[in-house]
């Protein structure tokens, strides 16, 4: 359910390394809480973002929630498949439902994010 090789934020984003870039999405818990995702507003490519800055928005039938940058860095790619199929976030939050990729990130911030064990413990405290 919660992959081992990515890191998590308290706002339920995940971020993981892939081919030198950092890929970001929302966690299984977040998609479950949101319910059916109906629209995703993706960030602009090339945008410099600071950690915890709202960069995207994910809408479900019930609510609209911000997605925050898990670390400081630059947005270099967005998942355009979500424009036509936002439900990919529900179906495959760690795979086809990824949101955007970052580069030039603050790796110290990245290392301080929660690992799976810490995130699962955090979920239990909610």
């Amino acid at each position, binding site marked *: 359910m919660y992959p081992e090789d990515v890191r998590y934020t308290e706002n339920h984003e995940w971020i993981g390394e892939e081919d030198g870039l950092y890929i970001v999405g929302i966690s299984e818990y977040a998609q479950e809480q949101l319910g059916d995702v109906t*629209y995703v507003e993706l960030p602009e490519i090339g945008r410099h973002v600071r950690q915890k800055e709202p960069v995207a928005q994910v809408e479900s039938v*019930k609510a609209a929630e911000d997605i925050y940058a898990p670390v400081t860095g630059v947005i270099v790619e967005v998942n355009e498949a979500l424009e036509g199929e936002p439900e990919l976030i529900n179906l495959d939050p760690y795979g086809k439902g990824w949101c955007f990729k970052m580069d030039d990130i603050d790796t110290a911030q990245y290392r301080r994010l929660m690992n799976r064990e810490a995130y699962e413990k955090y979920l239990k405290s909610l």
Partner: protein
Amino acid sequence: MELKKTPLFECCEKSGGRFVDFHGWYLPVQFEGIIAEHLHVRSYAGIFDCSHMGEFLIHGHDKISHFSFLTCGDFVPLPIGKCRYTAILNTDGSILDDCVGMKLDEETLFVVTNAGPLEEVSSLLCNSDVQAEDITQQIVKIDIQGPLSLDVLLQSGFDSQVAGLKYWTGGRFEWNGEEIIITRAGYTGELGYELYLPISIGADIWKQLVSHPQVKPCGLGARDTLRTEMGYPLNGQDILPGTTPLMASMDRFIDWEHDFIGKDLLLQQKNEGDYRVLTGIKTHTRQAPRHNQKIIFQDSEVGEVTSGTYGPSVGVGVGLAMLDKKVAIPGTVLQIAGRPLQVEVCNIPIYQNGTARKKVL
């Protein structure tokens, strides 16, 4: 405060419901998922536990007349078996609750109200000249909605005379020797029936209906997206303290011929004409307007979103907004404050292909 549970709580839990607090009631917001349930109701049939709503009986011509004085509609001349949508008013003409009344027989009016203001409504109806009988605690209410709902009822052992009910009519029926009330009405825009059942048989009927292969249990989430696509208002959200029937776009439900509470103030509002009205809105993408967002036209605020969601059957964002009259004209394009999102004022219903009025015989 501990949340109240309806007599169908165990049934809903067994059906996999995810529960939330709705006006003090612990009710299922969804089972399989809001969109799946919504689409199922539009094509097949879904059942909803609506036992949190209020039911009243008003006995006698005089009492029905007293009740009509408290509402913008007149129930005295209502034919037997007919339903009428109305609003129970405060002394200033604003809406205390919107509700439906049906003449069960010449001397009996059956009234169905919302959960939100139930205590206040009950105290008003029971302690005034209306002397209504509050039967809320004795009733389980199951709504079955969707184009196949009649087929499901007939295949589940309901009286074949149910098929004779026209849109917005109802009456007394029998189920295994027990008296029940059925109206052909609903809150989804689809062919549907509202079943008012004695508590003793509520769970049995839920189980029977939910076991039908074409039926899915549905929650408040789908109920909300279905009614929003139809432009039906929700009390406590689209209708707020101070909202009058004119503001709620209930003009055609106001019977100006009869005497009622707050009538002078409503007439004054109508004549002055300077008020906000509840209006349908839609977007042109999947992005939805959201409750409480302010609406801008030519740099000034002209209203706010009262309901907003993605409309699964129309594929765009849909909602209701309380808007200045001058912009409440279909086709007008408005800006959502602080968001890169435009909405267009549109006619109601937003979803036009509902089966609610279809001929079933």
